[in-house]
């Protein structure tokens, strides 16, 4: 297989993408009343009104996750009871979700909160850690 040149030619020249076909629906960004196009999982922890507080489409800058971490921790026990293993998105104290997978959480987070940093967490009792892999400096 390889690059699909036909698909590539349809992309704007300014993008110059070798990614082939880009998937996903084109959705309106700014209508806050628009129902979610990818329904969240039913949950007692799904948050309604307070999502609107963070729904600004102005660019947000990343100032750290202090608020989001605290908001997640305050709801974590409830989420672990109601929706373990799912994904939630925080911006400030507002939460969206839960969602079945990371990609759904990411897409819906961008759609709801607009451009800017998100705080996506999988609802797990213990935070998984990652190994960093290569750490040996290059000798050259």
């Amino acid at each position, binding site marked *: 297989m390889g690059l699909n040149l036909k698909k590539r030619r349809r992309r704007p020249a300014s993008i110059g993408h070798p990614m082939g076909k*880009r998937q996903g629906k084109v959705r309106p960004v*700014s209508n806050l009343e628009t129902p979610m196009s990818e329904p969240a999982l039913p949950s007692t922890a799904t948050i309604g009104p307070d999502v609107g507080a963070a729904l600004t489409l102005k660019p947000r800058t990343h100032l750290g996750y202090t608020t989001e971490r605290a908001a997640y921790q305050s709801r974590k026990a409830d989420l672990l009871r109601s929706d373990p293993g799912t994904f939630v998105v925080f911006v400030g104290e507002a939460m969206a979700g839960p969602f079945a997978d990371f990609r759904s959480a*990411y897409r819906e987070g961008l759609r709801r909160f607009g451009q800017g940093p*998100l705080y996506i967490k999988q609802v797990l009792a213990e935070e998984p850690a990652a*190994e960093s892999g*290569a750490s040996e400096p290059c000798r*050259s």
Partner: protein
Amino acid sequence: MPVLNVRIDHTGRPMVELYLTMSTTQAEERRQSGDPVPGLVAVNALLDTGAGRSQVSLAILEALGLDPVSDVNVFTASTGDVALMMDVYVVDLASAGDQPGPMAEDLPVIGSSKLSGLKVDMLLGRDVLDRCLLAYDGPNRCFSLAYDQPAVVM
């Protein structure tokens, strides 16, 4: 299934040239709001079976104008038992060279400021390699990497 021939650099490390760009999802959102979408950035990636998740130089992620989407604890050899909290970003990944094409969409990667010491832009970890077939021909000092179509990881 595309197959990449992975070059061995002068220190014996398996390196592959890849393209990174803004995630499909974010690019669509930016187009909808009339914002520019950044182009591709070519990166030198080290195939690293010791890395659970792929890492990308923060300088490259910032050049793409990306914002973090999460954070994760990362254990490194230098920090011992103490984990570092590092931000997570989402990118699209494509192969370069003679077989360009998409490898992963909406791929979460860890942003790292520590890769410059390794003289690489990216560690291609098991989150991507788990979707690939990696063959190492030791006597002939060559790797090959076969991958399937875009994979959503995590």
